[in-house]
């Protein structure tokens, strides 16, 4: 656990391959009150409560339902909760920012700048290129002292995976990378190496530092390391590619259309027009910046049935489904964006994913999992909630949020989506002030940027999750 006061360990237990943390440890760390009454465990913090039920993965957080990957378990007198409890249940009610980085086994408390550092070395003939990514973006200064290159980051701490670089052998010019102090890393290079050129380049949410290393035999004198002018693209060999991505296709669903105008704005604008205009911008930006294919459920003003919207995503094996809408309230002053994740009642959840024995080709029987179309979303709810949380984080300070920014509801268009899916309400068209804002370039640009950033972070999270 990392906070302004420094680092301290938070003990974890492994139960059925799931990492758990003790509620008593969390209570003493975060000043929570835990009450174990008949059939439920209530966790309170400053008047807000989380209600956990034994054997249930659903929990109520200040009246809203969230799902955990596993139910709470009792060990002797202690209650253990999955570590995701911190991100999904505690974060929404806690008054200080909490960020759980499960792959790094790091919990960040407060507004600390803790970029995750990853490194990669590529041989380019006799020379080499060291690529160091800092996510979220952090500037750095590079200095050289003999065989040692020090990279100091403008941050409060660094999130460094166990080994920054696998053991290197010749012809690699780098022998090792290690942490020097809380905000610096040291790169050990081979003796008398030829010199280096460093260039930083922002890449979505990442600051990529490329250090070109010259081989020892090179006669060219070393160039000043820090603040070197960025090399022109022609100088960079084409080996720089985007990492392999678990997100190849995203379906963006502009809500309503055709005869269904959706909500009407206080000054007469129509939800269907706003959602289409924003969806087109999202498509252009995500395709250009992230190289991800974006499918729109409608390209123009037409009626599209709710089932057809999800069908487009399902048949194209989209990795993410985002439905874009604009809200309305009978109270004209309500404003702010909301993110919705599907909700299912208990009976529906129980009937999902029933295995059925069917005849197989070549004789015999095999079990196949039958997922009813209407309940396809159930198995993706965890990832949908994770994406919703990332969206909420990215919207902060960029897109005005409603009082309850993330909600769960039985929304028809999400239920059949066989991939992580959310519905975003951009804001309230019924509010005359917000209606004007939503139509503007500033808002739409900020929204598209925040959504794109959330997709990048979600992709990173999926990559980290699958590479573990």
């Amino acid at each position: 656990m990392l906070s302004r006061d420094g680092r301290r360990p938070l003990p974890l237990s492994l139960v059925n391959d799931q990492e758990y943390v003790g509620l008593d440890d969390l209570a003493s760390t975060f000043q929570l009150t835990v009450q174990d009454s008949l059939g439920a465990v209530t966790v309170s913090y400053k008047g807000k409560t989380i209600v956990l039920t034994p054997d249930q993965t659903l929990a109520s957080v200040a009246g809203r339902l969230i799902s955990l990957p596993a139910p709470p378990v009792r060990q002797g007198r202690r209650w253990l909760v999955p570590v995701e409890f911190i991100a999904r249940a505690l974060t929404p009610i806690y008054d200080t920012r909490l960020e759980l980085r499960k792959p790094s086994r790091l919990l960040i408390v407060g507004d600390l700048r803790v970029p995750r550092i990853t490194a990669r070395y590529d041989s380019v003939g006799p020379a080499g290129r060291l690529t160091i990514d800092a996510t979220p973006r952090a500037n750095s200064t590079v200095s050289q002292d003999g065989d040692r290159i020090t990279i100091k980051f403008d941050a409060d701490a660094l999130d460094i995976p166990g080994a920054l670089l696998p053991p290197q052998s010749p012809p690699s010019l780098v022998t090792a990378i290690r942490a020097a102090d809380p905000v610096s890393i040291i790169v050990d290079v081979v003796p008398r190496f030829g010199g280096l050129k460093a260039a930083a380049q922002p890449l979505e949410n990442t600051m990529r530092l490329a250090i070109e290393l010259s081989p020892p035999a090179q006669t060219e004198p070393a160039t000043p390391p820090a603040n070197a002018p960025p090399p022109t693209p022609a100088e960079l060999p084409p080996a720089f590619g985007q990492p392999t991505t678990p997100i190849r296709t995203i379906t963006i669903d502009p809500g309503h259309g055709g005869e269904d105008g959706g909500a009407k704005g206080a000054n007469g604008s129509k939800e269907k027009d706003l959602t289409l205009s924003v969806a087109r911008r999202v498509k252009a930006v995500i395709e250009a910046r992230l190289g991800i294919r974006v499918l729109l459920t409608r390209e123009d003003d037409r009626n599209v049935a709710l089932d057809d919207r999800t069908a487009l995503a399902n048949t194209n094996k989209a990795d993410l489904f985002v439905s874009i809408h604009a809200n309305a309230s009978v109270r004209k002053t309500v404003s702010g964006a909301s993110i919705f994740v599907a909700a299912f009642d208990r009976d529906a959840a129980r009937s999902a994913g029933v295995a059925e024995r069917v005849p197989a080709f070549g004789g015999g029987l095999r079990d196949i999992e039958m997922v009813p179309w209407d309940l396809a979303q159930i198995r993706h709810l965890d990832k949908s909630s994770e994406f919703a949380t990332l969206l909420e984080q990215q919207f902060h300070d960029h897109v005005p949020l409603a009082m309850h920014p993330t909600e769960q509801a039985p929304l028809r268009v999400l239920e059949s989506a066989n991939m992580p899916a959310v519905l975003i309400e951009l804001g309230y068209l019924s509010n005359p002030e917000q209606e004007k804002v939503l139509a503007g370039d500033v808002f739409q640009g900020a929204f598209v940027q925040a959504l794109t950033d959330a997709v990048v972070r979600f992709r990173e999270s999926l990559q980290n999750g699958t590479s573990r």
Partner: protein
Amino acid sequence: MSKRVLAIVAIGTAGLALFLLLFVGLPRWYGRKPRIAPSGTAAAAAAPTAPAPPGRKIKAHLYYVADDGMRLTRVERDVPYGEGAVEQAREIVSAQVAAVVDPLVSAVPAGTTVRALFVTEQGEAFVDLSKEVVSAHPGGTMNELLTVYTIVNAITENLPAVTSVQLLVDGKEVETLAGHVDLRRPLTKNLNYLREEKEEVKTKN
């Protein structure tokens, strides 16, 4: 002689009957609490079938849009007494969809009426609303959620015998009211959309 004895017996019997009626029967009759508690949470489904005096009311919790526009607020109001679960549910929904005056704001579009209401043995209520609930709906996910859970909560909160509610429009099943909330299945009570404050607004009916 025998006539006299008979008269005494008859008068005595009549007196006894009158005594019993005046001092035992009537106090019991009038003193009997309705099975619908003042909070409106008793099982009206199990209410006895005794004839109700005309104009008899029960207290029920009805739901209106809270000041924040994103939640419902619970208001205790007088609702006509209905015979059995179905009639009582109909009275509650009729009162819920009826027009209201400031400061109350309803999430149910103006002009919406109850066409029919059924309750199955499994405790599922089917509420058939007039087409205005769709045609006059202002749209927006939040509005739609509040419209749906106004009706669902009004029935399930006041009549615990009813566990879920399916909304029909103009006699037919519908996918949604305004393109968002799935109405193909009965919905259970959802207090997530209820404002958390404990105090309840009390209004005159």
